[in-house]
């Protein structure tokens, strides 16, 4: 008798576990954001909205929980009779879910933020164009897709851009999660010496991800590249990120397919 596939259960459980962690994360970032708003009220300087404000910290957060996930869940699941394959599928689905949930919450919080400021007439200027330093210096012809897309749209007014912002936010943080997961899986399987190699692969992946979104490259390692940025259409960037995420996921699957479980 074939049993019902178990990976949806793994996906749901992992989604809620990581969502619980994420609520803490969002809480802290929100707190920091409120402090910044208060400062902004007193100094009168402009501030990015929550979506923009939380974007880079969400990326780092996702990288970290991605790294943790291999160690936290692989042994657990195989020990409970779940195959590596079901673990992988469930974990990947949960990651997609968490990325969407975090960006959805960020979008909703930003919306709320605009609403509150509107209603209370607080003298705060939320401006995405000023929050990211890389935009001000972007007077060259190379487009910076990510910030521009967000800037050119007030997510509350234009629903299509609202969706686009969220999509970009999700894809960005999801790619960081799978990159973290790759590092974790590499360390899990090969130990710390070869594990360093996975950090190198991860850095390259982050650079590729940034290139796909046309973000200026901040990493010193990317100086050797013959270009600073490539210009892709929005949907090109979306497709590119999905391909990148897919490639990294298949690496993770290859690494964990027959991996020895740590006891």
């Amino acid at each position: 008798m074939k049993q019902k596939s178990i990976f949806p259960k793994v996906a749901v459980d992992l989604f809620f576990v990581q969502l619980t962690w994420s609520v803490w994360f969002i809480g802290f970032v929100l707190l920091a954001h409120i402090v910044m708003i208060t400062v902004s009220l007193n100094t009168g300087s402009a501030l990015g909205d929550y979506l923009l404000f939380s974007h880079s910290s969400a990326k780092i957060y996702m990288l970290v929980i991605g790294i943790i996930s291999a160690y936290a869940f692989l042994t657990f699941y195989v020990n409970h009779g779940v195959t590596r394959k079901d673990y992988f599928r469930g974990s990947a689905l949960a990651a997609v879910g968490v990325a969407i949930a975090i960006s959805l919450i960020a979008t909703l919080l930003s919306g709320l933020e605009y609403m509150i400021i509107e209603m209370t007439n607080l003298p705060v200027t939320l401006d995405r164009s000023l929050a990211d330093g890389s935009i001000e210096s972007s007077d060259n012809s190379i487009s910076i897709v990510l910030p521009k897309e967000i800037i050119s749209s007030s997510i509350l007014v234009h629903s299509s851009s609202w969706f686009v912002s969220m999509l970009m936010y999700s894809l960005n943080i999801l790619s960081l999660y799978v990159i973290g997961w790759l590092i974790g899986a590499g360390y899990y399987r090969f130990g710390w010496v070869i594990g360093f190699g996975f950090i190198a692969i991860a850095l390259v992946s982050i650079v590729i991800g940034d290139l796909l979104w046309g973000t200026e490259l901040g990493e010193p390692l990317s100086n050797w590249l013959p270009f600073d940025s490539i210009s892709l259409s929005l949907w090109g960037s979306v497709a590119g990120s999905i391909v990148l995420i897919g490639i990294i996921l298949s690496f993770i699957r290859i690494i964990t397919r027959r991996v020895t479980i740590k006891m």
Partner: protein
Amino acid sequence: MTIDVDVRNLSLKYNDFEALKNISFHLESGKIHGILGRNGAGKTSLLSLLASFRESSEGSVKMDGEKPFENANIMQKVTFIYEKDYKDETEKVKGMLEAVERYRPDFDTNYADHLVKIFKLPLEKPVNKLSKGMQSALNVTMGLASRSPLTIFDEAYLGMDAPTREIFYKELLADQSEHPRTIILSTHLVSEMDYLFDEVIIIDKGALVLQEEYETLASRGASITGVTNLVDDFVSGMHQLSEQKLGGTKSVMVYGDISDKQRNEAQQKGLEVGPISLQDLFIHLTREEA
């Protein structure tokens, strides 16, 4: 529900070290199998292969005729209980049990509650705050209550005090009689667990020394005690495990079948033929050659 285990020519190498050497055996379903071996004999390596934690270098493992590795059908039926490192496990006892319940189809919540009570497990305490013995009791609770068709306890008693171990053994036997499954107990506490085993496997330095039914095994060894020269006479040609001398009296442990004729002969000579314990057998069969 139970499953049988068939191991053929199993070898496991860690780089140059051969942890398991060409091991073959069959574990009948529905029985309690004791796996005995000294520290580093390869017990845990063998059990981690059965639990699909790793793959063998050579040979095969089959359960109910299927390969277990990455086989969702089989893996779900196999529970592997070992001494886990819980120092970072902040989940509460209750949460751990709920997680097992979610993933083990045969898990019995009422039975788990019963075990929690008799082991006096604090449900609301984080697992890393439990004593070593309590952590083992939790492991045993998860293992027994899962009622998996194949349940493996790898030295699951570590850190438990004697009364707690006694509870574990008692519960194991009681639950096994009501819900038979295939159980593997690895141990080196042979003397206090021997009565649990239906079958015994002894491994030493990665190789199989013997597999025997416990009853047979117990009857195959004997201690011959009596006047020194008569004993020497009687045991010559037998597989001798050890000897002890006290004055003119000698006691020799032998391994092998002793026929009724031999027993009669011994009786006539005034020699005492006594049983030897599994513990003695184990010690002598796995003794390092000096």
